């Protein structure tokens, strides 16, 4: 078992999964917020773009988006970022994960906007706040509060979806799990438990944190 742990180097794989998850979350949050603002903006062209983005990306498999990035953009078109192969793969892995989950983040934020009663916007207009100011002081603060729990769900899903990166040879937990099973079939169940624990360590605190946060910032009506 000690030999398995040493040869498989789960720690490095865990570190790779962690980077995919954290960088992917940051990317997805930024991109998702931009798409969500476009979606609720008063401009039809921006609304159209955001709606198309969400429909297209949300309904495509993550594997397809990842393959498109790695084989389509990186290998065929030669769009390489970074010096060595593992950095290049990590970059496109993060991009694919961000782009894919941004569509879910955008929908979560929009659902947050939808939780706000129409009267809030009317009251903001009635005291003379222009559109931008009512968005900033009345709508957005409440929308973000309402979106905390669904955004947490997306981040947990994102963390587990990083395993798709194994398909393009990124050395994260799932790919390490597969090679370990090949070399140490007698430790099969132990390997399963080990990988499961690695993910629980990431997702459980995330879930607890977002539940706590959503309660803390919840708007009482």
């Amino acid at each position, binding site marked *: 078992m000690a030999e398995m742990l040493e040869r498989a180097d789960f720690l490095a794989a865990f570190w790779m999964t962690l980077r995919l998850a954290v960088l992917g979350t940051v990317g997805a949050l930024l991109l998702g917020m931009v798409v969500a603002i476009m979606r609720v903006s008063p401009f039809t062209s921006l609304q159209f773009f955001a709606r198309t983005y969400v429909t297209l990306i949300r309904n495509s498999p993550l594997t397809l988006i990842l393959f498109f990035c790695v084989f389509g953009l990186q290998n065929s078109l030669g769009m390489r970022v970074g010096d060595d192969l593992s950095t290049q793969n990590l970059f496109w892995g993060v991009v694919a994960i961000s782009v894919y989950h941004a569509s879910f983040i955008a929908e979560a934020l929009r659902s947050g906007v939808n939780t706000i009663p129409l009267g*809030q916007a009317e009251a903001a*207009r009635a005291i003379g*706040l222009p559109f931008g100011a009512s968005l900033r002081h009345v709508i957005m603060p409440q929308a973000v509060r309402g979106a905390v729990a669904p955004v947490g769900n997306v981040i947990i899903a994102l963390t587990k979806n990083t395993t798709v990166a194994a398909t393009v040879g990124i050395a994260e937990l799932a790919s390490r799990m597969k090679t370990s099973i090949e070399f140490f079939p007698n430790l099969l169940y132990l390997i399963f438990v080990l990988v499961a624990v690695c993910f629980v360590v990431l997702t459980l605190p995330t879930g607890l944190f977002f539940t706590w946060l959503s309660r803390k910032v919840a708007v009482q009506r």
Partner: protein
Amino acid sequence: MLSGVNKHFGDLHVLQDIDLTIHRGEVVIVIGPSGSGKSTLCRTINRLEPYESGSITIDGKELPSEGRELARLRADVGMVFQSFNLFAHKTILENITLGPVKVRKQKPEAARKRAMELLERVGVAHQAEKYPAQLSGGQQQRVAIARALAMEPKVMLFDEPTSALDPEMINEVLDVMTDLAREGMTMVVVTHEMGFARKAANRVVFMSDGQVVEQADPETFFTAPRSERARDFLGKILTH
């Protein structure tokens, strides 16, 4: 001060050729059966509802269609909603100071001081640091009135301000409104509170099916309504 001329709109035609002039300092109560367009009339005055034809002027100035001009005008028109609509994520005090600070560009300190005076006046000063959901309906509505007053409006619109309240809370809100009326605030009040209409109104406007059917001073209206529809309406609500 406010002459609404000839607004009608919608395929439902909820407001049909309304002509209404409200003078400075006047308290106009709008009553009528449900769906008669009285709430819509109230909301149209500060253009929360758009209208297709006709014009509304306030102090001789035409209501602008959208954008900053309209926002500036709305700041001069106080509005109190049936469902209070206090900003749920802000404290009572912040609810009141938001407009004066962001729209009127008052100093936060001055706005806070003025807000506390207004809260004192409507009797909820001790709740200033709480959030709207922690207050009773009657208290929330009084805060909503204070929020509108903080903008120093030229006219106050009340859209069924007591319809969502428990019976024992109605009076605390009506008392505040009666005081306002006595102080000379120009008010347009859509309500079902006939007692308040009798006591505070300078004029009663009776609406039915999107039209102004009858206007009169309260005494005349309640004792000797001219139109058939007003008699019918009063007969239904005043018998019990």
